[in-house]
């Protein structure tokens, strides 16, 4: 009788707390995303926030619980389209975890998943779920019974094992050394800041100790930022370089694709607008995995299907690592300033969707060069290659240039700097960098020192999820080693 009473109270106790827990997200379909569909699951009191924000809806009534909706989802910062996907949400407590749960059934692309992850982790109170956390919440909220829970331990074990394998200590070589160095530097900086806070006044820690800390953190900050700006080299190496072929209709994009894939992958005709949807093909180029997409010719059109094709072309281009722009050489006047004409041509193409593809590397192909007579006078800058798909002119040169460009994307000049290969690492490193930035900002503006140091603590915690947790004892070891503290 009393026990029943207590048991009831206990559930009250838990539900009271679960309402304030952070909202967690993870790929529900496993980390190796090379599938038709990938599901991102979000659970927590703020879960529906992501549904509204990403779909640009204001009212939740638009989505009935437990019903699948086909929607477009957008990046809330850049307003770019991310994907068209199925969404569904479950209202807590009638959900897997007992909390509000949202699922995005996105296309099984690493690129889309990683965009989604970086957007979701920027939401307030959102964080990446730990191994088995969904199941744990489900269990705590009474949504799983014991028999169901049996299998879960194995699952969590597997997930933990997977993360452990991905984690630093399983990693070999330079990446491990690099992260480990950052970790040691930050631990030292934090220990010195903590010593300054706790012992400066009665044990006389020197005043300039903070100056050293700031310098050290600045260096680490610069290094991690640089590491993050690697244009996804490591991941490209692992998942493949994504290339989109863009250009005006009938410029010869599909012909180029067929040359690259060495088979008639796309239908080729002289009719403008033959290709409408994105055609994707995976090839091996000089040892590098490449995913190449042919797209609809870019033009303003009244045909709704073709228009959709143009939109898709741009959307896909945004997700790529490299663009091949195909221009019909016969449309250019070879006697005039060619570079200017090409620039003009590009800007005409891109204004169709007022898209900014400036940040992407571009390789410009002047196709149908066999139709041009004044070959002798032509001078091109390095990233412009005149070819002819039909007459097989310059194809070898194009291929070797393309291979070179991809190789550049995949490797750094110095082979000692390792690449970032793991999306999870990227998220935590990004958080690390953001907190280091806040630390430097606050401390350089002489704001509340504890507040600044709190960001240093958060930074170390994010880094620690990759490199292993930093326990207080480790900090104390540094403090007592570097400073004379006693009675």
């Amino acid at each position, binding site marked *: 009788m009393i*026990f029943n009473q*207590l*048991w009831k*109270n*206990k559930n009250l*106790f*838990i539900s009271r*707390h*679960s309402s*304030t*827990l*952070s909202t967690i997200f993870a790929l529900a379909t496993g980390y190796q995303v090379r599938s038709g569909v990938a599901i991102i699951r979000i659970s927590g009191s703020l879960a529906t926030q992501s549904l509204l924000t990403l779909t640009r809806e204001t009212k939740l009534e638009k989505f009935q619980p437990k019903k699948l909706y086909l929607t477009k989802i957008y990046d809330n910062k850049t307003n770019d389209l991310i994907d068209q996907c199925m969404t569904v949400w479950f209202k807590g407590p009638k959900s897997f975890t007992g909390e509000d749960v949202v699922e995005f059934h996105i296309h099984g692309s690493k690129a889309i998943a990683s965009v989604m992850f970086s957007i979701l982790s920027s939401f307030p*109170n959102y964080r990446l779920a*730990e*191994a*088995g*956390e969904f*199941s*744990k919440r489900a*269990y*705590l909220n009474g949504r799983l019974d*014991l028999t169901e*829970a049996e299998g*879960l*331990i194995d699952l*969590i*074990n597997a997930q*933990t094992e997977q993360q452990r394998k991905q984690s630093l200590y399983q990693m070999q070589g330079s990446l491990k050394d690099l992260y480990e160095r950052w970790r040691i530097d930050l631990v030292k900086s934090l220990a010195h800041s*903590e*010593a*300054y*806070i*706790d*012992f*400066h*006044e*009665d*044990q*006389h820690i020197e005043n300039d100790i903070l100056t050293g800390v700031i310098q050290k953190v600045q260096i680490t900050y610069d290094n991690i930022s640089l590491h993050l700006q690697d244009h996804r080299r490591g991941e490209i190496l692992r998942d493949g370089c994504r290339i989109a072929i863009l250009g005006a209709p009938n410029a010869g994009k599909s012909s180029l694709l067929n040359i690259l894939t060495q088979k008639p992958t796309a239908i080729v005709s002289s009719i403008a607008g033959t290709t409408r949807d994105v055609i994707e093909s995976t090839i091996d180029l000089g040892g590098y995995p490449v995913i190449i997409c042919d797209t609809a010719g870019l033009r303003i059109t009244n045909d709704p299907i073709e228009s959709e094709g143009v939109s898709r072309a741009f959307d896909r281009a945004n997700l790529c690592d490299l663009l091949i722009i195909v221009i019909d050489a016969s449309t250019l006047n070879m006697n005039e300033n060619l570079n200017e004409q090409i620039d003009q041509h590009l800007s005409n193409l891109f204004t169709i969707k007022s898209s900014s593809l400036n940040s992407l590397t571009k390789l410009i192909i002047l196709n149908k060069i066999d139709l041009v007579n004044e070959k002798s006078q032509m001078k091109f800058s390095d990233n412009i290659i005149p070819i002819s798909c039909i007459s097989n002119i310059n194809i070898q040169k194009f291929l070797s240039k393309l291979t070179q460009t991809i190789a550049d994307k995949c490797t750094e000049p110095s082979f000692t700097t390792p690449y970032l290969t793991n999306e999870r690492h990227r998220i935590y490193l990004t958080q690390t960098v953001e907190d280091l930035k806040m630390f430097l900002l606050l401390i350089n503006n002489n704001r*509340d*020192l*504890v*507040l600044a140091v*709190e960001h240093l*603590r958060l930074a170390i915690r994010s880094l620690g999820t990759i490199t292993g947790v930093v*326990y*207080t*004892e480790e*900090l*104390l*070891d540094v*403090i*007592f*080693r570097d400073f*004379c*503290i*006693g*009675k």
Partner: protein
Amino acid sequence: MFQLAKYNLRSFRLSNITTTYVRFSTSNYNSLSESELKSIPIQGVIKQPVNSSIFQPYDVVVVGGGHAGCEAAHAAARMGVRTLLITHKLETIGEMSCNPSFGGIGKGHLMREIDALDGLCARLCDKTGVHYKVLNRSKGRAVWGYRAQIDRKLYKQAMQNEILNTKNLHVMAAAVRDIVIDKEQACITGITLDNHCLIPTQSVIITTGTFLRGCINLGMDEQKPAGRINDQPAIDLAKSIEELGFKMGRLKTGTPARLETKTIDFSKTITHKGDNPPLPFSFLNKHVWIKPDEQLNCHLTMTTSQLADIVRKNAHLSRHVTQDTQGPRYCPSIESKILRFKNQTHPVWLEPEGFDSDLTYPQGLSCTLPIDIQLRMLRTIPSLENVNMVRPGYGVEYDYIDPREVKPSLETKRVTNLFFAGQINGTTGYEEAAAQGIIAGINSACKVLNKPMFTISRGEGYIGVMIDDLTLHGTSEPYRMFTARSEYRLSLRADNADLRLTQSGYDIGCVSEERYNQFQSFKKNYDQAKECLQNLKKPMHVWRHLLTSPPELNPSRDETIKSLYSLVHQAPYMMDNEKWLALVPDDQNVRSMLLSDNELCERLCLDAVYEHLTKRQKNEIDEVKRDESFIIPDSFDYQILQISNEAKQRLEEVRPTTLGSASRIPGITPATIFSLLRALKRQSQTPIFNV
């Protein structure tokens, strides 16, 4: 599984007797009505009994009258149970046996939390301090360290006055010989005094500090058993505790020489004045007892290379150093500072011992060298060239109990209703001791009253951080509190200790009505004012126009809607309190409330400063609390779990009391925790939660 091995014959016999006695006395209790029991007032000193047969049983017996003992006894008495405090000498109750100060960074936080639970030390320091100074003023409010030099004599008097005039609390001068245990139940039934008298009790709190096999070191030759100079150590008790199988270790600490104040040339030092105005420790007080300019000064001087030479030449004469093979990481004495660090000079604070004391305490000079060398050493320090050493410094070695032997409630895992608190658990410092005392006091009473255990989680207070660290990881050096130990430092501030703890303290019964009423009226105003400021929202450019001085006439449009609350800490808008306060509506008297109550205003601004990060921490704290609500029963068998042997071993070693603490043991994986959770739920025909 614990052992209750090797009882000596006497205590075995006694324990049998006691069991029957206690049974008898409990039935007596039951036959007495509530009012009859209350009508037997207990308060003040009670004489040591000559024979046990006439003795009244107590609910709680506290052994030791130091900082932990006093807080424990007072807390238990506040909870309304019959409490007895036993100490060697009445006149040493509340003695500050080392430094003449209270508080500091981290330690000050502990004191505010003790005060929030209606404890003694903060309140007493407000009426006995001679020099109040908040440390870390330049580093942010979350790490402000309330600290004061205290008049030893006044403090002791104030403490004795408090202890002797507390309802439900008896005080007895006696030496405790042994604890008496019901062997079957592994449960406390009483204690025996050194004249073999038995005092039956339901629970016992041991707070004997350094007195367990305490041993004083002074040079190499002089080593004598004592807990404090001139006081007897407790050897028998140590033996009994050891016989029960408790894992024990040995720690050392030290205290510096005492100097004659009039032989110090203060002109060669840097003078540090107390704060003006001095800030009180207690939430109950708006002011301290003395005027700002009546405060005594502290003085700073530095050791020289000459002192380093003397120490180096004589290091072989210091017992602490010669024994120091694997010493603690911190420096327990000036010898270790000199030998371990390259820098030749170390700060020495010359601290006053009180208004009518002619002694000065040189903080930073703890020392175990022989007397003649100590004096030579002292006289190399600028300002101490002609100093007269009234008492030499000395080192103390003492037994402590591996704190992993106690639960977060501070009850031992081996013996039911036996509590350990204070230095005996491996801590150092008055504040750390007092903080444990109050928790042990509350919980011993809770046991008697059949209430759930009162524990503070890591997210709720520094007290929780300390006890969690100790009970999970143990300690190999005297454990001292500092803010680096808390992962929720921004949330656990000295200014909000009452908001964190007073309500739960009142709910369990250790907070008086008077304090609770004051707290409630503050909280009501606070909530109202905060809500009002949070609801006052305008676009940013309007705020800029209203708040900047001189007013920004045409601020560029910025339509971001912000609340006044989110701006109250932001320079340059909030430099001028008058200005923004004028914008606060006064329909519910919020403005006049804020204008008249400076403290309220300050605390609101402070909350706003840390708000965006404390909000983030709150989620984590709640997650910790949720996991803490899953209690692992004492008898839980880890062998039934399908987890690695290594994990089993670790869990078996620590025997964590909650799922939360289990998850903080290094090397324990989420899968292990999940297995544990599953097993707990399966067994949960019994309730597994904590309030």
